[in-house]
Every structure is written in C-alpha cells, then in structure tokens.
C-alpha cells in the first residue's frame, strides 16, 4: 500500500538517524545516556508546564556538540 510513498520517505528517516548517531559518535557520548537525560528533562518541564511543547535536541555546532532545549511556554501556568 503506497509503498512507493513510504520508500520515498525512508531516505529522510535514514538521514535523520545518521545525523543523530554521528553527532553522538563525534562527541564520544553513548546516545542512550543523552536520551535518558532528555526524557528526564522533559518530565520535569512537563511537571511545571503541562501543556507545553518542549523540544530537546542534540546538535552538531561547528566543533562542539550541543544539547538544546527549546521550551515553548504557550500557556501561562493556571492560577488556582
């Protein structure tokens, strides 16, 4: 079913996965460790801002690898 469509997309999946894995390789960090940190961070953010869309990403920035957190606070925390 729409296998040609799916096929066209798998290259994008591969590219994303490779970019991520290479960033970890270059930084000599095991990905699972950052993944766990990311999940913990997201959990904490969720606790304070339940309805936000937070994104925490690892990126290659020139020589260094950076963990960026973009925490969008679309909604002010509800007053009681």
């Amino acid at each position, binding site marked *: 079913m729409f296998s040609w469509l799916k096929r066209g997309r798998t290259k994008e*999946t*591969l590219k994303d996965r490779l970019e*991520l*894995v290479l960033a970890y390789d270059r930084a000599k960090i*095991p990905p*699972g*460790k950052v*993944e766990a940190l990311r999940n913990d961070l997201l959990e904490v953010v969720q606790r304070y801002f339940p309805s936000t869309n937070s994104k925490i990403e690892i990126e290659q920035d020139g020589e260094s690898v950076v963990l960026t957190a973009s925490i969008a606070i679309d909604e002010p925390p509800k007053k009681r």
Partner: protein
Amino acid sequence: MDAKVIVVTSGKGGVGKTTTTANIGAALAKLGEKVVVIDVDVGLRNLDVVMGLESRVVFDLVDVLEGKCRMSQALIRDKRVENLYLLPASQTRDKDALDPEVFKTVVQGLLDEEKFDRILIDSPAGIEAGFRTAAAPAKGALVVVNPEVSSVRDADRIIGLLEAGQVSEIRLVINRLRPKMVASGNMLSEGDMLDILGVKPIGIVPEDEGIIVSTNVGEPAVLGTTQAGLAFMATARRIRGEEVPYPKYEEDKGFWAALKRMFGGG
C-alpha cells in the same frame, strides 16, 4: 544447527554479515528463541543502527568486559520482538580492548546466567584479531558469501580457519543472489558454490531493495514480507532444524525471456 553460539563471518567486508546477524537474530526470536546478537566490531559499531536500536545504547561490550557495568545494563531489549537483545560494540575504544579469553567467559555467562537459547556474533571483516575474537566462543558458523569471485575466495579462506579451530558446524548463507543472472549463466549458482567450497548452504537470499529500505528505517526485513525477509526467515527455520524448501524466485518475464522460452532456450 545444534550450536547455541554462532559466529556470522565472511572474510570480505560488505557482503552482508551485519544484515544477516540482525535478520537471523530477529527471525529466531520471532520463532520463540531467546536471542542475543553481539557486535564485536569495536570502533566500527553498526549492528545497532541496522537494528534501529542506536538511540538506546548506554553501555557496551567493552564496559562489560572491564567490569564498568553489569551485563543486564548493557543488554538492549528490542521492544518490537519479544526475547531479542543486542549487546553493542564500543564505538570509542580500539580493537585491542577485546581479549578472546575474556570474551569467551562473557559469552558463557550469557548462556549460564541470562539463559539465552542462541547467541549470534557479528564478526568484523578480515582474518585478524577481530575475527579470531569473534569466533573464539563459537561452536557454529554462518559464512556469508556473495556469488562473486573475491567473496568466494575469502569465504574459502575463512572456512579453512574455522575448520582448524573449534567450530564444528559450518553453514553457508549465499547473499545477494540475482536469479536472473544465475538463469542466464552469468552468476555462480548455489550448486556451483557447493562444488567450489564443499559447504552446504543453509540460506539463499536474493538481492533485494527491501534490505536497503529496512536498513534505512532500522527495522529488520524479517518483520516484513520482502523476498529477502522471507529468505532470512526460511534460513532461521532451517537453523532450527526444519525442512524448508528453497523458493523459486520469479522468473524473468521480459520479452526476451519469453522469446527464449518459446524457442526452447534459457
């Protein structure tokens, strides 16, 4: 195959060892075995990405060998297939970090303590230290070979080395076979390979774009229904002792093939 510990090897690089390890591992787990696949390619880890488990690596084989973590911390459980585990190689260390004797005790521990039914070891290319370490704990071997000259020659060399060691069950996995080319007499057939190498094939896997797509998304082909996926699944069944006939791959349906058939050729 009776061997619980099987090394997947080839001599030559790029013939499909990692693809075979991932797929046979997933297939055996699907068939009910508790399986661990081990990446021994220290410094050039790949089995994790082929299996789509790369983001979950925290500890690795070398950490276990050096006592930096417990085995259970390094084993990654595949959430898609029950009873399938990956033990990743270290990406940051060099090859000397792996001692064959220490590796043997680790593998024995996986059998005795973690109760795995089957352990598949993805060997690095070559015939040097990395290969010897990978083969050290193995009683069985899957020799992956492509139907082309350099791969067959390297496979013969590897088979010789395995026979000189303690590996007693050696089987051939013929990978990237192109039925059309075999039919037209331009590629070695399964029978030719048996004649040349004297080792029986246990699997014949066609060249299949589905393998590339499955690697792109990090999902072993045996979880789908591509020709290569089905061929790996059949191979796993044969490893478990089932009699599985080899399928007839789709004949050349092109105009020339039809013409040839009409005139009794091909």
